[in-house]
């Protein structure tokens, strides 16, 4: 096992990793930007180093300062969390070059899967169904021809993409040029990589993803699926659950089989997630995230497994201590993301001082957060304040528990998504478990109209 791990992240995921390390008896080094000096992830680590000013490009993305911190503190591994450098193959390679274990898959696999267009090609070779689409489109003209072949509506996506950035729906030829340019610019500024590809738009699909875990000895297990179809108009997830409701057993098995084949095809190691669009009984591979996901706690709750500890153990060279047959999911878990956002104003992010913070507790409730009464929300980063996760023996019990937990939650000082989450939980679509990715945008349009 490692002696000391550098946590190359901030916020709740940095705390999450710190917890896993502590429980494994591993020392931790936190990094932080100047406005994050009073953050909980700094307070709970064994050591902490400021690596730059507020803007992430100069702190949480500063590879030299992060690597230097790891080296001068004698870390033997780096956990990247999610976002920031988590899917940066170059960073993973630089860690290796400096004798630091990157807690994640190999740089090669990150590179292959990180390029969304390449990833789809690899998947097609492994006989996994992907959404009909193109390779990288060099120009608007090529995009125009491709759209004609696929048939509108189509989706333009950034090959380096994630979190809905650089993604545009195009419903007809007259929108194409503008959408192409906008997506390219957004991708360029978000990922320093403006390359786009195109997919046929699957109308009203569900977003269902499958968790995989592989060790360095070729063992791979599937840890079930998560339904992440409650997404904001920006395609960012708001509520996730495990297992997916009303998913035909045949479809579930097919998803697991595809995920296993995909992971085997690339000799996947560590934790990863395959995202699928599911429409009726058809499932299309969308992309693979070669890191821990924000929504991993719902899987942890139904499988009673600590995914971040597993990541660390695998990276430290331990074999999985169980086979697929040993894994038995139980009950149902739901996660609500509590963001500092104004849901009534297109989820505009908010920053400020948190004057009063009280989190829910009691049976079946898990809270992952870095905020506290009197703390601040800097304007530079992701707006997520907390994840509230509810477990129940049944989906109905989990929903009831989540509702009471959200009603117990107090966050004063910034707007949050608590009310929006409560509104989703109260809909027939959600309680019946019949919803797709157009559900929340539709609900918001209704609210605007009313």
């Amino acid at each position: 096992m490692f002696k000391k791990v550098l946590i190359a992240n901030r916020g709740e995921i940095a705390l999450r990793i710190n917890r896993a390390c502590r429980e494994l008896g591993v020392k931790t080094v936190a990094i932080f930007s100047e406005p994050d000096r009073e953050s909980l992830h700094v307070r709970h680590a064994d050591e902490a180093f400021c690596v730059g000013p507020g803007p992430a490009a100069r702190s949480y993305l500063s590879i030299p300062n992060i690597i230097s911190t790891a080296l001068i503190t004698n870390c033997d591994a780096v956990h990247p969390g999610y976002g920031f450098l988590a899917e940066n193959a170059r960073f993973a390679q630089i860690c290796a070059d400096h004798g630091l274990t990157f807690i994640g898959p190999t740089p090669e696999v990150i590179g292959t899967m990180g390029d969304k267009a390449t990833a789809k090609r690899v998947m097609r070779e492994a006989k996994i169904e992907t959404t009909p689409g193109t390779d990288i489109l060099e120009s608007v003209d090529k995009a125009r021809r491709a759209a004609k072949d696929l048939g509108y509506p189509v989706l333009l996506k950034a090959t380096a993409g994630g979190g809905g950035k650089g993604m545009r729906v195009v419903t007809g030829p007259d929108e194409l040029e503008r959408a192409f340019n906008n997506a390219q610019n957004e991708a360029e500024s978000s990922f320093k990589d403006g390359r786009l590809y195109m997919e046929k738009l699957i109308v009203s699909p569900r977003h269902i993803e499958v968790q995989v875990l592989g060790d360095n000895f070729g063992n791979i297990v599937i840890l079930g699926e998560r339904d992440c179809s409650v997404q904001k108009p920006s395609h960012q997830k708001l509520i996730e659950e495990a297992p997916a409701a009303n998913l035909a057993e045949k479809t579930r098995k097919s998803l697991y089989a595809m995920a296993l084949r995909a992971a085997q095809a690339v000799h996947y190691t560590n934790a990863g997630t395959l995202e699928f669009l599911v429409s009726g009984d058809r499932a299309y591979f969308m992309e693979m995230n070669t890191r821990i996901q924000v929504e991993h706690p719902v899987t942890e709750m139904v499988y009673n497994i600590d995914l971040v500890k597993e990541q660390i153990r695998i990276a430290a060279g331990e074999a999985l201590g169980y086979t697929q047959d040993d894994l038995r999911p139980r009950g149902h878990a739901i996660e609500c993301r509590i963001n500092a956002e104004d849901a009534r104003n297109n989820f505009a992010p908010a920053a400020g001082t948190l004057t009063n913070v009280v989190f829910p507790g009691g049976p079946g409730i898990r809270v992952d957060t870095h905020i506290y009464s009197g703390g601040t929300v800097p304007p530079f980063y992701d707006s997520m304040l907390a994840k509230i996760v509810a477990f129940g023996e049944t989906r109905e019990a989990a929903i009831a528990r989540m509702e009471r937990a959200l009603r117990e939650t107090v966050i004063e000082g910034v707007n949050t998504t608590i009310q929006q989450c409560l509104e989703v939980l109260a809909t027939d679509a959600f309680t019946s478990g019949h919803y797709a990715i157009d559900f929340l945008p539709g609900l918001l349009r209704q609210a605007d109209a009313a």
Partner: protein
Amino acid sequence: MPGNNVVQRVRSLVVAFLDTDLVRLRIERDGGHVELRRRASSRPATADSPEPQAQAAAPENVDAIKSDLVGIFRFSRPLPVTGEMVDSDRELAYVEALGIRNPVRSMGAGRLVSVCCDDGQPVEYGQTLFEIQRV
């Protein structure tokens, strides 16, 4: 009880006042007021200064030379000495990061009023390495 209550409220007001950097706080309500003043001697640092104006001005004149990266701090030769005058582009030290020696310069002439790190010490981004009084 009401009398006792007033005592309690004043006591908590005093505690809150001492926690601030205010020198005077006056609160009026219909019909009454309370005023709190801090004794001059209770303000540290400036208290026994014979020349308060110079004292107050001093910090204005001092530049902190900060690290702009994370690494190991090392003195350059000749060793900088507290109190010495440094010229405008003197290399006082360097921060070693990923095997690269990143010089720390005086960024203008002045008197070196403090050396804030030890040789071989790990330093973080923004950490003050030296203080130089501009002349």
